């Protein structure tokens, strides 16, 4: 029972890490597009969205470090943990794939985080987290609109763009259930009033996705084997490659600053 009690004491820290890791890993994935996007405007868009997420992650890590109280700062938490210590959901670590896959991933995530940040801003008893949430909500509204428009444009575009958009949705839909999953640690953080249950925004997420898919002419696939495990530190093969690149500088030159 000792381990469980210790985990419960850390529930607030863990809940913040989940939010921070989601933002950092997805922000890093978007940064991989820099210089490779289909058009200059989209290069700017992907970099800007990545920057929003990185900014959110920094504020969340700094606050998580304060709550943990062990002197770990944002860089320690972002760059010096092992793969099994990252608690991001699997959706955000999925490789970029083609542009359609990146837009589908961003739509799924933004359609969840936009209402979730709004709910956190409205109900968290942690003033710092509520402040981060109020800002992030506005940023995710912008991401949601940008990606939603692309998913509609591509789904309702040419035969080739529609085929790719449907393939992206077919591949990624299985990762979305994890966004709403409950865990004992998260339930503790919810009971403590740090943040609301993510399940409370599921209905809004489903409405948003259904509305976009109907305009895009896309079909949500039936998910036979939902994928999850990220919140327990169980990641896919691609996560190691991502971390190797993202952590390289701090591992090779510990304490390096710009």
């Amino acid at each position, binding site marked *: 029972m000792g381990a469980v009690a210790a985990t419960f004491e850390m529930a607030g820290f863990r809940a913040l890490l989940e939010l921070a890791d989601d933002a950092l890993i997805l922000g890093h994935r978007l940064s991989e597009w820099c210089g490779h996007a289909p058009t*200059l*405007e989209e290069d*700017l*868009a992907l*970099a*800007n*969205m990545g*920057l*929003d*997420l*990185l*900014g*959110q992650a*920094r*504020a969340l890590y700094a606050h998580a470090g304060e709550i943990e109280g062990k002197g770990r700062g944002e860089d320690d938490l972002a760059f010096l943990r092992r793969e099994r210590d990252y608690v991001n959901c699997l959706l955000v670590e999925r490789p970029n794939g083609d542009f359609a896959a990146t837009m589908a991933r961003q739509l799924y995530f933004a359609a969840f985080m*936009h209402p979730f940040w709004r709910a956190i801003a409205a109900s968290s008893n942690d*003033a*710092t987290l*509520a*402040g*981060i949430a*109020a*800002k*992030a*909500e*506005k*940023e995710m*509204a*912008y991401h*949601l*609109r*940008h990606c*939603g*428009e692309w998913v*509609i444009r591509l789904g309702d575009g040419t035969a080739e763009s529609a085929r790719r958009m449907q393939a992206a949705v077919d591949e990624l839909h299985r990762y979305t259930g994890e966004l709403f999953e409950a865990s004992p640690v998260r339930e503790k953080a919810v009971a403590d009033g740090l943040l609301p249950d993510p399940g409370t925004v599921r209905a809004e997420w489903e409405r948003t996705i259904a509305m*976009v898919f109907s*305009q895009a002419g896309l079909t949500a696939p039936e998910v036979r084997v939902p994928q999850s495990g990220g919140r327990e530190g169980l990641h896919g093969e691609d996560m190691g490659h991502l971390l190797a690149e993202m952590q390289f500088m701090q591992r090779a030159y510990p304490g390096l600053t710009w």
Partner: protein
Amino acid sequence: MTATTAPTADLDLARARSVASRVPDPEVPCVTVADLGILRGVERDADGTIVVRLTPTYSGCPAVVAIEMAVQAALLDAGIDARIERVLSPAWTTDWISAEGREKLRAYGIAPPVGASGGRRAFFAEERIACPRCGSEATSRISEFGSTACKAHYRCDACAEPFDYFKCI
């Protein structure tokens, strides 16, 4: 109000407010931090230290540290020792850009934010953004994201000039 409790003029604090409010934004130097509404207050704390409160525009805005350093440096130049505090709540909104700030943006060639910040906008909603040079509303959005996190990119279909639009959030 009695004469004994009338506030004695805190000249250093007044000067700190004046100096801090005149610091230009590093990315958009035509406006000051006060014009943009990111200067949230200059007060003395319980120990008497002057505290300057600043808020970021966007979570990932790379200018946040540059702005904090610029304000600190301006105050040091004026011989004022102050502490800079970053406040996140309430979240910054373009509603806080002053009328003077909006006019300065337009004169500089950046279309100021249109309307009040609100909730989520509909997909494919088009806003009528007036060209900051010729005033025409016949403009087209080139890119939803621009040279900095706070701007989008537009083109005027009347005078053919491209221009930045300060996004409304």
